[in-house]
C-alpha cells in the first residue's frame, strides 16, 4: 500500500506509551503503535515477549499501568471488557461448553440487548458464513478442533466488533488445517472489512497473513513494517535472527564511501553492502545474509564473491542447504532450491568454490 493511502486512513487502535508492570517485573516497556482501520495487523514474537499482554490490554483483561489505549479516537483503557466494542478469539476458543453452537454464537448479540430470536437468526447467518450451519444444535465438545475454531470466529464476529483480536487462534490446529485456516482468516478479514489484530509466535504465519507486522521481544517493539520490509530489511539482530533463516556474521566496518560500507569478515574476506544509518567506520557489528540470496560457482560471479570449501550438503525437501567454510573465515549456509538445480550447481563436500551474492543481499544490523 502507498504512504498516501495510510495518511487518509483512520487509526483503529492507538496504543500510546503503554507500560505494563506486574510488581517488579515490567512486561511491556513503553509501547506505542497505531493500527489502521481495515488492517490485518500481527503482533509477532517469542513467548514471554508481551504480545499477549498487549492484546489482553486492548481487550480489557489487563489494566494498563501507564499510558493509554484509544479506539477510533476514544480512550478505552478504563472501560471493562463488556463495554469495549472489540471481540476476542481465544487461544483455547473458550466456547461455552454447556451451550449449543447456535447459542454460543448468539451470546454476544443477546448480551447487547437483541431478543433471543434475533440473536439466533443472526447467529444462524454467521454459522452459514463459516459453513457450520448443520452443527447449530450441537455442543462444542462434539466438534473437531478446526470446527471449534470457526465457531469461535463466528461468535466473535457476530456482534460486528470494530476490532477483532485473535490470540494465537491457530496454534492448536495441525499443520494442514492451519494453512487452510490462514487463508480463510485472510479472506474473512477482506470480506468483513473489520480490523484484525493477530497474535502469533509463528513467523511464517505472520508473513503469510499480515498487512503489517510488529515484531516484539522482551516487552519492546523491535520493528514495525510490512512483511517484505521485515524479512528483507531487518532492522536489528533480533529481527534478522527471529524471522526466517539467516547467516549472522560478526564484521568490522573498514570504511564507508558513497553509501557503501566495506566490511571485514575475518580471514581476509571483504564484503560491500549498503550503508545503514548509525553505523560508522570502525564499528563492530553484525551482518545478515539470507541463505537463499547466495549461490555457488566454480569461478567468481558478478557482484560479491567469497572463496571457500563445501563442508556438507543437507537435503531439506524443497531445498538443499550447503554448509560452506570460507578460507580461514566463518561458515556460511547456502540454500539452493531443488527446482533451480538446472541453473545453480551443487558441489560435493570438499570441493573448492565461490559463493556469490548481489550487492544489497548483505545487510548490516543495529546492535
Amino acid at each position: 500500500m502507498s504512504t498516501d493511502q495510510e495518511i487518509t486512513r483512520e487509526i483503529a487502535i492507538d496504543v500510546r506509551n503503554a507500560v505494563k508492570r506486574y510488581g517488579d517485573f515490567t512486561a511491556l516497556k513503553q509501547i506505542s503503535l497505531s493500527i489502521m482501520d481495515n488492517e490485518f495487523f500481527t503482533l509477532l514474537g517469542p513467548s514471554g515477549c508481551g504480545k499477549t499482554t498487549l492484546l489482553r490490554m486492548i481487550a480489557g483483561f489487563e489494566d494498563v499501568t501507564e499510558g493509554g489505549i484509544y479506539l477510533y479516537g476514544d480512550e478505552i483503557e478504563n472501560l471493562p471488557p463488556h463495554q469495549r466494542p472489540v471481540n476476542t478469539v481465544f487461544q483455547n476458543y473458550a466456547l461455552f461448553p454447556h451451550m449449543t453452537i447456535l447459542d454460543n454464537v448468539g451470546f454476544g448479540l443477546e448480551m447487547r440487548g437483541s431478543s433471543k430470536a434475533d440473536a439466533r437468526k443472526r447467529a444462524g447467518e454467521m454459522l452459514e458464513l463459516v459453513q457450520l450451519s448443520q452443527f447449530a444444535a450441537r455442543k462444542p465438545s462434539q466438534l473437531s478442533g478446526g470446527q471449534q475454531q470457526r465457531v469461535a470466529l463466528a461468535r466473535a464476529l457476530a456482534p460486528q466488533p470494530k476490532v477483532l483480536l485473535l490470540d494465537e487462534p491457530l496454534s492448536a490446529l495441525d499443520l494442514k488445517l492451519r494453512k487452510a485456516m490462514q487463508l480463510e482468516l485472510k479472506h474473512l478479514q477482506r470480506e468483513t472489512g473489520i480490523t484484525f489484530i493477530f497474535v502469533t509466535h509463528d513467523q511464517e504465519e505472520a508473513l503469510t497473513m499480515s498487512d503489517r507486522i510488529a515484531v516484539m521481544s522482551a516487552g519492546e517493539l523491535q520493528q514495525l513494517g510490512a512483511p517484505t520490509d521485515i524479512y528483507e530489511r531487518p532492522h536489528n539482530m533480533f529481527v534478522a535472527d527471529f524471522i526466517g533463516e539467516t547467516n549472522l556474521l560478526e564484521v568490522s566496518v573498514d570504511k564507508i564511501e558513497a553509501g557503501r560500507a566495506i566490511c571485514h569478515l575475518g580471514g581476509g574476506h571483504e564484503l560491500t553492502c549498503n550503508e545503514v544509518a548509525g553505523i560508522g567506520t570502525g564499528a563492530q557489528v553484525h551482518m545478515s545474509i539470507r541463505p537463499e540470496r547466495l549461490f555457488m560457482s566454480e569461478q567468481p560471479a558478478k557482484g560479491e564473491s567469497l572463496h571457500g570449501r563445501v563442508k556438507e550438503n543437507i537435503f531439506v525437501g524443497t531445498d538443499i542447504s550447503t554448509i560452506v567454510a570460507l578460507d580461514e573465515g566463518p561458515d556460511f549456509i547456502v540454500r539452493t532450491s531443488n527446482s533451480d538445480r538446472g541453473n545453480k550447481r551443487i558441489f560435493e563436500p570438499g570441493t573448492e568454490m565461490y559463493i556469490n551474492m548481489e550487492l544489497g543481499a548483505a545487510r548490516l544490523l543495529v546492535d
Partner: protein
Amino acid sequence: MATAKTAKFDIKSYRGFKAMTLICLFVLYAPLVVVTIYSFNASNSITTWEGFSLHWYADVFIGPDSDKFKAAAFNSFVIAITAATLATSIATLAATAMVRGGKFRLRTVSFGLISLPLMVPEIVTAVATLIFFNAIGFDRGILTILLAHTAFCIPFAYLPISARMQGIEDSYEQAAMDLYANRRQAFTRILLPLMMPGIISGFILAFIVSLDDFIITNFVKGAGVETLPTAIFGSVKQGIKPNIMAISTMLLGVSVLMVTISYFVSKSDNTK
C-alpha cells in the same frame, strides 16, 4: 490384573499389595454387610439366624418405638435439608470470592476460618457450641442443632465446589465479558451452570454430614429432641436390638444412594 500374562517384570506391581487392598475392602464392608443381613433375620434374638423376614422393618414403622423413630427421622431430614441448603449457598458464594477474587490479604484467614470445623476435633466443636448457646441464653432445640450443623457443613460443601471452580478456566467468563456480558451475567449464565456438578456434590456431602452427625447433635439437641443418630445411640446403649439394625440398614441405604448420585454427578463433566 492380567499382568502375570503380559509382562514378567512390571515395575509398578508389588506382590501382596492387591491382597492388602482386598483385605482393606473386606474390613470396610464386612460389618455393614453383616448388619444388613441380620436386619432381615426372623429371630427375636440377634445371635441366631432363623430365616428371612421383613419383621423388623415392619417393627420400625408400626412397632412400639415407631413414633419415636418417625419423629427423629423427620427432625433429621428437615435439619439435613435446611442445613445443607444454607451451607451450600454460603459455600458457593465464598468459593467464588476465594477462587475468582484475586489475591487478597484476608484470603488465607478466610480459608482458615472455612476449614476451622475440619481442624478442630468434632467433640471440641460440640462442647464449644453447647457452651456458646448456654452463655448467650439460647434454648437448646431443633434450631440450635440446625445452626450448629450449618456451620459444621460449610467446609464439606466448600471443598467440592471450590475444587470444581478451580477446574473451570476463567477464559469462559472472560469470553462472556468480551461478548458484552456484565459480571453478574457472566456469573449466572456461565460460571454457575458450569459449577452445577460441584454444587450438587457439595450439597449431597453436606446433607450426609448433617444426617449422620451424632456428636455435635448430642451436645446441642436439648432434652426431648432427637435425631436418628441420637435415637439410635440411645437404643444401642440398652443393647443392640434387631429393629436398630433395620433402621441402620435404611439409613445406610440413604447414604450409599446419595454418595452414588454424587459420584455420578461429579463424573458428568459438563465442561467437556
